[in-house]
């Protein structure tokens, strides 16, 4: 976009615009909301269509649905412990919502809703509130001993407790900024190299070779983005599991 003018406008791809005509304008229904609805519907369609045949020897779609179920279930049980079964629906929803959001965003002309800090911050606040609620529900006021691990000399308490509280609170920021920065940086890189292709390709015969080079970099970047999309969804889910483990077991 706007590559011909000599400057690279890498951030305008994240602008929100209303979709679906005048109704969308009225409701402030942007393309991010549309992608969220599509991602949710796709996850539900995968699970519904995958679970419908109930075959002993699963077909392709049923295997995909079963694999999705088993991956997240083993993630929950391995990380949280036997109590993890209770948190499986939450972790599953979170993982697949983020995964489909990331993957759909790689598609041309699609919008990546996880590249907005507002979305990822809302998700991480949800995780944070849930984790704190679970810890308070299970342990009551004993939960606050989390900030003062057993066996630490009392003299260290004035130093240790603020650090522990700060690191507990900084989970909100680190969880949200990690996902948002990964998705945003990937799409900015794609945009920058695409702009290189247009700028160099328009520069005449001498620019053809570097333009082809930046185009092949862009192709490789798409593959890397596929990896990052899956990895960041996995990291978000596994960190949620680790935080839930802390909440259930207190260190």
């Amino acid at each position, binding site marked *: 976009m706007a590559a011909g003018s000599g400057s690279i406008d890498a951030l305008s791809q994240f602008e929100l615009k209303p979709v679906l005509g005048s109704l969308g304008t009225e409701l402030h229904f942007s393309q991010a909301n549309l992608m969220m609805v599509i991602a949710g519907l796709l996850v539900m369609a995968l699970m519904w269509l995958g679970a419908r045949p109930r075959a002993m020897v699963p077909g392709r779609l049923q295997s995909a649905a079963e694999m999705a179920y088993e991956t997240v279930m083993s993630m929950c049980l391995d990380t949280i412990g036997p109590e993890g079964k209770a948190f499986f629906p939450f972790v599953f929803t979170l993982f697949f919502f983020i995964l489909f959001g990331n993957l759909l965003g790689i598609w041309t002309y699609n919008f990546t809703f996880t590249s907005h800090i507002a979305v990822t911050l809302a998700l991480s606040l949800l995780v944070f509130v849930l984790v704190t609620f679970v810890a308070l529900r299970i342990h009551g006021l004993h939960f606050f001993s989390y900030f003062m691990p057993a066996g630490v000399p009392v003299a260290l308490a004035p130093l240790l407790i603020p650090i522990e509280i700060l690191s507990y609170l900084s989970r909100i920021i680190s969880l949200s900024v990690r996902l948002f920065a990964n998705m*945003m940086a990937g799409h900015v890189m794609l945009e920058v190299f695409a702009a290189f292709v247009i700028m160099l390709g328009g520069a005449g015969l001498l620019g053809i070779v570097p333009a082809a080079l930046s185009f092949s970099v862009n192709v490789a970047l798409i593959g890397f983005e596929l990896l990052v999309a899956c990895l960041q969804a996995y990291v978000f889910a596994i960190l949620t599991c680790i935080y839930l483990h802390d909440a259930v077991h207190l260190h």
Partner: protein
Amino acid sequence: MDLASAKDLGAGIAVIALAGVGVGIGHIFAALVSSVARNPAARDRVFGLAILGFALTEAVALYALVIAFIILFV
């Protein structure tokens, strides 16, 4: 120095953090290679941990990148 060039310099300085991230990611995969060489049977379990560590380290690089973008564009 005018504001625009100061911004460019600041964005350049902000991404010096990538040096540390490079060292960190190198460490993670060096440790992965040596542990798989010692015990190939543990590959599946160790690989997941390495990828988790890679993602956490890479996030630090992206924090620096976000700071550079904030300096440049906001």
